């Protein structure tokens, strides 16, 4: 940023000064005067083709490094779900604690936000942390940051989303880890726990009738599936991340697990974003469960 600013300032100032200098230096003296007929210069053209090109490539490279780092979250993150809807933000801590237009995070931890939208495109933006990401209905986006100083910081919706777009903001509170723990335990209750809610949905929506834990059902066992490698019917493999789980719930036939039939109905339009998150959280909680030898979505050996 400083680098780009320096280069841009240099060119802006240099060209402006040169233009103004020429304006005075070569001001017309007599009405009939004509300028010197210079048509061009190949060497100069080459210089100002190549030099800006090289400079801009360094700018590109610098920006690319930051961006790649930003798009690839580290592994040891604190995952918080954030759902945008016209015109409020709901966030949910890993313990299930929910907040509206507020977000509490501990200082010095890598925090990953998993963003979902109930309606239109929003954008979760924390200018003080230099981060933002669109919140797009229909799929998850993630963003991550590492707060370094306790305090309260504004967050905004940066993608225009309708009438009260400007009011769709709130505060991030960055706390000392101990304060954060205290804050978490002070308000968490079992019924808000997404794993519990997800387990309930898992039965209610009849997922449990096919996805048997022992792998003997009509559908793969979900034990240990999260973050594991899943072998698909077409021979490829995918990592079972949030996006994959979401897709499997909403468009089950898109990726069929090897050895299974495409039997599952879609749940598109039947689950709210929050319910999908709860189900995902429940499936995640099965990560530590023993993986059956056969009939699993993920082969035990293939586990990371």
């Amino acid at each position, binding site marked *: 940023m400083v680098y780009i600013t320096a280069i841009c300032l240099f060119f802006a100032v240099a060209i402006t000064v040169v233009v103004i200098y020429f304006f005075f230096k070569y001001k017309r003296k007599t009405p009939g005067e004509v300028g010197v007929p210079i048509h061009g210069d190949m060497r100069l053209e080459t210089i100002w083709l190549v030099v800006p090109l090289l400079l801009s490539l360094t700018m590109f490279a610098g920006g690319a490094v930051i961006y790649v780092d930003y798009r690839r979250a580290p592994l040891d993150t604190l995952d918080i779900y954030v759902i945008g809807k016209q015109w409020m933000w709901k966030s949910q801590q890993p313990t299930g604690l929910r907040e509206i237009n507020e977000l509490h995070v501990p200082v010095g931890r890598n925090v990953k936000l998993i963003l979902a939208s109930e309606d239109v495109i929003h954008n979760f933006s924390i200018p003080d942390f230099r981060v933002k990401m669109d919140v797009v209905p229909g799929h998850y986006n993630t963003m991550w940051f590492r707060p370094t100083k306790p305090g309260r910081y504004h967050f905004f919706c940066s993608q225009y989303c309708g*009438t009260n777009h400007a009011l769709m903001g709130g505060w991030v509170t960055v706390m000392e880890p101990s304060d954060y723990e205290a804050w978490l335990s002070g308000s968490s209750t079992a019924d808000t726990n997404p794993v519990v809610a997800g387990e309930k949905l898992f039965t209610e929506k009849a997922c449990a009738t096919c996805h048997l834990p022992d792998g003997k059902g009509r559908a793969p066992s979900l034990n240990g599936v999260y973050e594991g490698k899943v072998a698909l019917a077409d021979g490829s493999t995918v990592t079972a991340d949030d996006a994959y789980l979401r897709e499997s719930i909403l468009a089950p036939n898109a990726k069929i697990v090897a050895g299974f039939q495409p039997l599952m109905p879609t749940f598109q339009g039947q689950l709210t974003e929050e319910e999908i998150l709860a189900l995902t959280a429940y499936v995640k909680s099965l990560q530590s469960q023993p993986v059956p030898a056969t009939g699993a979505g993920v082969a035990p050996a293939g586990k990371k």
Partner: protein
Amino acid sequence: MPREHYLNATYGIRSWLLTTDHKRIALLYLVSVTFFFFIGGTFASLIRIHLLTPGGYLVTPETYNKLFTMHGVAMIFFFLIPSIPAVLGNFLIPMMIGAKDLAFPKINLLSWYIYLVGGCFVLYSFATGGLDTGWTFYTPLSSVYSNSAVTPAVIGIFINGFSSILTGLNFIVTVHTMRAPGMTWFRLPLFVWAHYATSIIFILGTPVIAITLLLAGLERMLHLGFFNPVLGGDPILFQHLFWFYSHPAVYIMILPAMGVISEIIPTFARKPIFGYSFIAGSSIAIAVIGFFVWAHHMFLTGESAYAALTFSFLSYLVAIPSAVKTFNWTSTLYKGSISWETPMLYGLGFIGLFLIGGLTGLFLACLGVDIHLHDTYFVIAHFHYIMVGGAVMGYVGGLHFWWPKITGRLYPEGLAKTAAVTLFVGFNLTFFPQFILGYLGMPRRYHSYPPEFQVFNVMSTAGASILALGYLLPMIYLTWSMRYGKVAGPNPWPATGLEWKTASPPLTENFDVTPEVNWEPYDFDNRHDLGLDVKGHPSLAPAHGDD
């Protein structure tokens, strides 16, 4: 002034509404784009007044959202895109290449009518419920959630697209087949090159926005699901299709302005333009590369990181031809004979503002920096520097430059200089603070904002009032000059283009006899017909280089 010219050849309202004369059609456009400019300008003024206070008490949030949307739609689709091509381009291209008219005069008139019909739909939308989707019409907000009059607006822009397409088609064919004897491609004025490049974008880009908005409109009317995730569609696809046109559309706005500046600078520096072929080539390069960069508007939508890297890289490439142009313009001034007349002041202003606008684009093309600046006031400031500082300055400068040709009369020079300076100062005061606001993190399209941002907003509003004055002044004295201005004569500056070889105002068929071109462009030294003091020149260094 000539006794008979295109303005008085025939009389009556019919002779204007049914004219196929490219010069008269240009004037019809002039009136209609000015109308839309004032509509858009009114919305802008209300926005700036509203933003004086952080709470924003002047209008409701709904109204505010409609104001900035309608400001964008009116200004972009109905002012900026047609402004220079349809007014100045229409008026000048046939004359510059020595033709009697465009290749398809009736289609030219048809484009104006299509523009009017599209404009009526959009005005209807403004009048009945307004439009609150943002000019970008992002789905599913526009196609499902908005309660405003989206459908007529979308239809209006769809229809208006055909006006652009037909104008572009006309220009391309005209430049290919209607050039006068001796008018080779490399003798074309750079204004024509710029319009040729613009027309390429008209032809290749506009149909895509037309079909995209049509699909979004169908989605809204019939509850289809092309871009609606609830029905299985993908909202990001809309953005891809939208920006496939709308990013090149930025070049539709700026390329013709660059063309104007490339005419003004050699004329008032009275020397050949530096690196003619590089300026011509860079216009084409911008038009072509401009099509490969669109997804840089989408770095944070969750698009593939590989795609983001590619598009960022290509975005830097498109910056190069613009830089080449700027360097060449600057070098043209070197050892010139620079006159400080009004069009040249606009030329100077253009270079300064375009420089800032272009260079701040480098920040936004930079992936890492864009994470912070995306969708903030920094973006607003950046594209206003390009579109207002660049395109509008070019347009107003061009109007001043060719005003004697269009009307046969000169405007009051003193007033005109005052207006040019007012515009420059007002513009910078309006938009420079917005760069700072953006850097501080103020998101765009906010009807109320945290109080810490107020200082810069007040500065911006103050600047906007100066800017408004700067636009009113030319309106008044240009209108005045049509009747009372000093008679200009065929070539008042003097300039080298073919358009200055005919009377001011020109005859209906432009030239008495088809001209024959046997000189190079901007070649003041060998043009003894201009009445300049060629011999008085200190050093006639042999011309070298690429020309």
